[in-house]
């Protein structure tokens, strides 16, 4: 049994007292910093990364994995509590998670996220342990046509994230695509829409945008409302999900885990696409789709599980190919190289103790996260009982520190302020930012791979249907388009819309 011997090697490595301690410290630090409003996973990782450089390679990676999980969970916590998604994959969680919090169900949302993440993480770990080798070879098959068609699927799907007008949602996706164009074009090297600012050469800062359009705009909106807003948001009924909540979230967690474990293999964008797909599926299978966007527990359980399972699986393309699926993963890859571990398919055979130790510590990290966070849910929720007049200045300052520490760039703080203005305008015009953010994340990958494919094929469009995988994705895209355009769904959407009034 390869699986068993691999896993036992892994646990032998990870379960040393020293490494357990590193895993725990990593989780704790990641969570503590990650829950500060405005300090998402990216900022948390960039703050804590240098601290791990002095450790031996295996311990460093184990601690980093702990920080990663902690920061991610911390990020989901702020996404739910104060509407501040720290990275692309928690954008979907914000939609229903924060709505649950507004309805006094913050504790339940946090518990759901913790339980879902834990379950998905466990399954993800098992999938990696059992199928690491074949999964690595699937990642190798991914070329420009496959990436392009996968991104098309994701972009079409993003429209469903909005609960209002479809037309406005499409416009927001297109706007996001356009914003993704800012920066250096990979094929030609031309700096587009940078207005001669070197700070824009690498593109807009995602963290600054989410901070502006979600976080800062939300603060303005809260303060504009009459009376003490805080009490409305914070009246917390229960911390623990009821029997009915469990009945609704369990299938969602299962489906989300399945989606994440499958889509996570695709290098680049796996977690985002997974949480998005899970949201689409939950909305589709739900008996009351009108609840989505207004605090549906499935809207938290599904995407959070999918995101976590995918994040787990995406360690495979990162470790074996060095293709990170997001900025946080890119930092992990950079840290590996510092310890002279070059990501390559040989990592599994050349550094088996490191590879399997990391896999085992992923699971240990997930357990620690659950143990650490279930008791803490009560405390996080208590944060909301702090009067808003004390809370919002803190959020503003933490946002500033957080956005600065991503690239150590003052320019990014100004960017956040600019996006605050834009986000406020969105709020007033009832334009929903989630589809735009998805467009922003997926757009550059779509354009790059579209043009790269055509360079490779010397302008022959047949390349997009030249492999079975690409055909499958394109077929999915067409199917999704039909489903979205079908009158049945449109009626459902309208019904949902009217229920609101």
């Amino acid at each position: 049994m390869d699986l068993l011997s691999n896993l036992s090697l892994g646990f032998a490595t990870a379960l040393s007292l020293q490494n357990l301690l590193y895993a725990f410290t990593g989780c704790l630090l990641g969570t503590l910093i990650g829950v500060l409003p405005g300090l998402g996973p990216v900022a948390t990782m960039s703050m804590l990364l240098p601290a791990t450089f002095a450790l031996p390679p295996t311990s460093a990676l184990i601690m980093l994995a702990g920080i990663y999980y902690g920061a991610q969970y911390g990020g989901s916590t702020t996404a739910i509590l104060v509407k501040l998604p720290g990275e692309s994959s928690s954008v979907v969680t914000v939609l229903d998670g924060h709505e649950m919090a507004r309805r006094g169900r913050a504790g339940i949302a946090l518990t759901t996220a913790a339980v879902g993440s834990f379950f998905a993480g466990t399954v993800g770990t098992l999938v990696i342990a059992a199928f690491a080798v074949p999964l690595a070879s699937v990642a190798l098959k991914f070329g420009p046509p496959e990436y392009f068609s996968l991104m098309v699927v994701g972009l079409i799907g993003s429209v469903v994230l909005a609960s209002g007008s479809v037309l406005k949602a499409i416009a927001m996706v297109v706007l996001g695509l356009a914003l993704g164009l800012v920066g250096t074009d990979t094929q030609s090297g031309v700096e587009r829409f940078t207005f001669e600012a070197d700070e824009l050469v690498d593109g807009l800062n995602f963290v600054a945008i989410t901070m502006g359009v979600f976080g800062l705009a939300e603060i303005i909106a809260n303060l504009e409302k009459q009376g003490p807003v805080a009490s409305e948001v914070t009246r917390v009924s229960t911390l623990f999900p009821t029997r009915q909540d469990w009945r609704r979230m369990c299938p969602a967690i299962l489906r989300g885990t399945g989606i994440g474990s499958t889509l996570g293999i695709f290098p680049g964008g796996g977690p985002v696409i997974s949480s998005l797909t899970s949201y689409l599926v939950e909305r589709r299978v739900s008996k009351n789709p009108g609840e989505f966007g207004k605090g549906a527990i499935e809207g938290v359980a599904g995407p959070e599980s999918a995101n976590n399972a995918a994040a787990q699986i995406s360690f495979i393309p990162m470790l074996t190919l060095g293709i990170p699926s997001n900025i946080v993963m890119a930092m992990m890859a950079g840290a590996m190289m510092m310890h002279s571990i070059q990501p390559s398919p040989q990592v599994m055979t050349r550094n088996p103790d490191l590879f399997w130790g990391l896999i085992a510590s992923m699971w240990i990290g997930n357990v620690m996260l659950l143990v650490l966070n279930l008791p803490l849910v009560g405390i996080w929720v208590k944060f909301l009982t702090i009067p808003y007049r004390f809370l919002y200045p803190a959020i503003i300052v933490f946002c500033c520190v957080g956005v600065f520490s991503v690239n150590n760039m003052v320019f990014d703080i100004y960017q956040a302020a600019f996006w605050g203005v834009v986000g406020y305008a969105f709020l007033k015009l009832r334009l929903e930012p989630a589809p735009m953010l998805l467009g922003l994340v997926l757009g550059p990958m779509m354009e790059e791979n579209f043009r790269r494919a055509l360079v490779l094929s010397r302008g022959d469009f047949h390349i997009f249907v030249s492999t079975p995988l690409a055909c499958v994705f394109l077929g999915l895209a067409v199917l999704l388009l039909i489903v979205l355009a079908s009158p049945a769904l449109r009626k459902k959407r309208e019904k949902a819309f009217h229920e609101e009034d």
Partner: protein
Amino acid sequence: MKGGRRNLRDQIAGVLFIAVGAAIAWKAQSYRVGPPSDSGPGFFPYYLGLLLAGLGVAITAVASFTQDPEAERFGFRPRTFLGVLLPVVVFGAMLMPMGLVASAFVAVLLSSFASREVTWRGALVNSVTLSVIVLLGFALILKIQIPVWPQFLVQR
């Protein structure tokens, strides 16, 4: 805007999309556009800009025939708006020359203007508390890369 014959909110949004889309398409022409099979750096921006402007036209058109489902006013309050965003800008401007602690202090103080519930006393207490938290947390415990004290005090 009491539920008139048209949806003003969407009309504004539509016009903004038209403007942004047109600007993108216009600027994209300064890059090579090219045919789809040999697309240059201007190809995606050009057609995305046109698409966005087209969607803007559609949104504006639809908005002329529908009503705004919300009768709520826009309710723009400059004091709140500036009270939240100005501290961010000031924090950015102060961070490098004046350091983290002073920037946090001023930013929190400024942000107090956003809320009508905060008194002068409360604002000061808030500023001091947060400056200390930021100093302890980020500068002393986490030691993140950030100037902590004003530059003129630290360097010669």
